[in-house]
């Protein structure tokens, strides 16, 4: 088995072998081919959107994706959330020595495939190799560049009382799936991570309504945390209907066993859409036609209040506050 060693990160011959033999091969495009210190991009017409994320996930190959796929989806989605059309990605690898070169190849292929689906080009990259015990197999940073061509502004501070909150599908799939696969818990759990590209769905939404106020993907911290961010940016409260929030039965079950709240679990293919009341139905309709929005639901309403709280109306009719995630999401066993 051929493995990555420190020599692959030395900047010398083996680094070039990796670049030419793997990255160049799968990411192939004329901009990446420039091989200079920076990549020069064709002129961009419109406002530029930029986002960056590092991806650290265990296991690196999981049910529903892999670290390569998620590192493209995450960044493409963040661009889409700002109403931008994703154009370019940079990719930075930090590899722990000992990673099988075949695993790296699989990851790179997955990045290339997902980037192609998203219509983005990988224009430049970087590879560092660290000693055994200084990483967990591989970490990937992607930075995305997109362009905003529409004349609308979307942002977490735009929610207004009366606006409706839509979610495009079931919550917690990614977080639950990863938790179940991490080995130590030893559960037999079949729900896949929802890791996917949302740029097409967002495109459909923005083609339908000019009254989209907020788009945001509830990743780390889950729905509850992300809505708290929005409530505080917009200085409004948000009222959710517990019964409208879609959660897969299996995810709900795992959460019951572990004593965790699915509203705090990470999602990697979900978007919170906050839209004016008059447009909510047509947005919901178009979302449900898109494969990424089949299970879309209106889950709540923006209400006037400067306590910036997120309220959950329970099935029984009670109300509770959903705070931001405090600390780490740990299984509660006792």
């Amino acid at each position, binding site marked *: 088995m051929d493995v990555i060693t420190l020599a692959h990160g030395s900047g010398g011959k083996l680094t070039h072998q990796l670049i030419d033999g793997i990255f160049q091969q799968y990411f192939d495009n004329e901009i990446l081919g420039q091989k200079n210190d920076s990549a020069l991009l064709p002129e961009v017409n419109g406002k530029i959107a930029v986002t960056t994320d590092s991806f650290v996930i265990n296991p690196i190959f999981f049910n529903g994706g892999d670290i390569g796929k998620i590192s493209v989806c995450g960044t493409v989605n963040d661009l889409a959330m700002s109403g931008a059309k994703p154009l370019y990605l940079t990719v930075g690898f930090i590899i722990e020595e000992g990673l099988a070169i075949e695993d790296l190849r699989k990851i790179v292929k997955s990045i290339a495939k997902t980037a192609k689906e998203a219509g983005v080009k990988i224009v430049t990259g970087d590879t560092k190799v660290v000693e055994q015990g200084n990483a967990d197999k591989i970490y990937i940073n992607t930075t995305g560049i997109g362009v905003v061509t529409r004349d609308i502004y979307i942002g977490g501070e735009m929610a207004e009382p009366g606006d409706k909150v839509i979610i495009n599908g079931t919550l917690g799939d990614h977080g639950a799936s990863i938790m179940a696969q991490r080995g130590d818990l030893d559960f*037999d759990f079949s729900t896949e991570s929802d890791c996917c590209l949302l740029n097409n769905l967002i495109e459909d939404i923005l083609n339908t309504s000019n009254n989209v106020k907020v788009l945001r993907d509830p990743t780390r911290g889950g729905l509850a945390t992300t809505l708290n961010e929005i409530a505080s940016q917009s200085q409004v409260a948000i009222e959710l209907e517990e019964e409208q929030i879609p959660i897969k039965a299996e995810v709900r*079950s795992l959460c*019951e066993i572990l*004593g965790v709240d699915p509203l705090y679990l990470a999602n990697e293919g979900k978007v919170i859409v906050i839209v004016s009341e008059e447009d909510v139905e047509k947005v919901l309709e178009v979302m449900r036609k898109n494969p990424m929005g089949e299970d879309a639901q209106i889950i709540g309403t923006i209400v006037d209040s400067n306590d910036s709280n997120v309220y959950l109306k329970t099935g029984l009719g009670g109300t509770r506050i959903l705070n931001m995630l405090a600390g780490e999401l740990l299984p509660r066993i*006792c």
Partner: protein
Amino acid sequence: MCVAVPVEVIEVSDSEATVDFGGVKKQVNILLVPDVEVGDYVLLHSGCAMQKLDKEEAEKTLELFRELAEHE
């Protein structure tokens, strides 16, 4: 205290059983509920079955709920 859920026993082998809870499956210890059989429900807490669920009693309780709910 103590997070625990009723799970269905779908396989029994010696001191362990495979249980199902809404699709989630797991191997659990059944030393505390010696007479457990496939199809039984048991209460699962920290990897061990704590008690067998009495299906008749469950029905009775639900009946009591309904009675109270519909009462007058």
